[in-house]
């Protein structure tokens, strides 16, 4: 039966004071170039996986910087590690190595 009445909606706000930065810190320890991203989207535009799935490496990297890490493991499984994103990046971010690092951390 449908329940009626009031309930509290979860906030959509990114609460920057309570973000868990641990994953981001672990990644940049291994791949400091992640800091250089300016969100131009070249990586996602050229991404083979991104054209057939919801996967956007730019968005994922941004979400990690904002501490939003739920469901990441599944997202990163879409990547085929072709490395086109790394080739195109105008800031020299080693996106491929970021993905490998994330996979390694999340698998542990």
């Amino acid at each position: 039966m449908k329940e009626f009445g009031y309930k509290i909606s979860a906030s959509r706000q990114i609460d920057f004071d309570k973000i868990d930065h641990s994953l981001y810190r672990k990644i940049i320890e291994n791949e400091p170039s992640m800091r250089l991203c300016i969100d131009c989207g070249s990586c996602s535009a050229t991404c083979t996986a991104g054209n057939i799935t919801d996967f956007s490496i730019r968005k994922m990297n941004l979400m990690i910087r904002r501490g939003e890490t739920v469901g990441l493991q599944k997202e990163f499984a879409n990547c085929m590690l072709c490395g086109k994103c790394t080739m195109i990046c105008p800031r020299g971010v080693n996106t491929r190595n970021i993905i490998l690092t994330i996979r390694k951390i999340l698998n542990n």
Partner: protein
Amino acid sequence: MQNKTVAIIGGGIAGMQAASVLNRMNYNILLIEKKDKLGGHVGEWTYLFPTLRPAIEVSSNIIKEIKDKKIDIKLNTLVKNIEKDKKNFRIILSDESTITADAVLLSTGFDLFDASIKEEYGYGIYKNVITQADLEKIFAKPTKISNPCGKIPSRIGFVHCVGSRDEKSGNLYCSKLCCVTAVKQAIELKKHLPESEIFCFYMDMRMGGPLYEELYLEAQLKYGIHFIRGRVSEASEKIDNSVQLKVEDTLTGRPLKMTVDMLVLMAGMVMSETGKQLVKSANIKLSESGFIATQDMHIKNNLSSMPGIFVAGTINSPMSISETLADAKSAAFEIIKYLEESN
């Protein structure tokens, strides 16, 4: 007449402006230009941002000043070598003649980044991919605007930051004038072709100059130019010679493809090849960006690493016309100071 000579290498607006000031202060000037006419890049441009005035108004004004003053000009001449000989400079020219000068001003300007280096955009491969300099030449013609295949374009794309802000082309700096140039050219195209749709693909809109932001606003409000935040990752030619773009529309977070009839690449500014060779011969330092490294970017920004050799204009960094003219006047002042102090 002051009994001192200043050799000015490069007859664009920077070199001419400095020549004009130094001439007024009664110095002997020798203005050396590699091409067969004065004016440099401005002389080859059609309309200027942000007002869309004809470029010739600016270049012809300065050229007239130089000619009226009967300044010594050497056209079709390259500088082969600059040597410091005690206090003077010995300059060997391409006609094998040698001149002596008390000070040298380098105003060799910039080259447009070679857009064919960014192979993913297909410049020089696909017919309908052009640069902003090519488009400016199209504007100079009185005929109706068409793409290089002769079709009146119904959709046109502009790619910002080609060879600028790009580690892969070795240029980390922002050329800073391409954004406003794209907006200016988009407006002009829309004026010629009101039925067309125009899209600018940008990473950041850098409209940091007088009336630039206002022009951006006008482009949206009056001309309906579209702006999509994403750096185009590749362009490919279709069978009908139209060009298909791939980009991430970063604000929706989804990959986007679009077909355009003409693609305009906003190629950045790089140190000119002529400047590079000169600098090598004179043993002058360059900065990491490939432009000149001055003695102090704030307070000695017209002084090269070699005392007596000065710089003005876009040999230093990307600059607008107003900035270039101001910089040339500033360089002229530094030269006067140097010559007076070395008396």
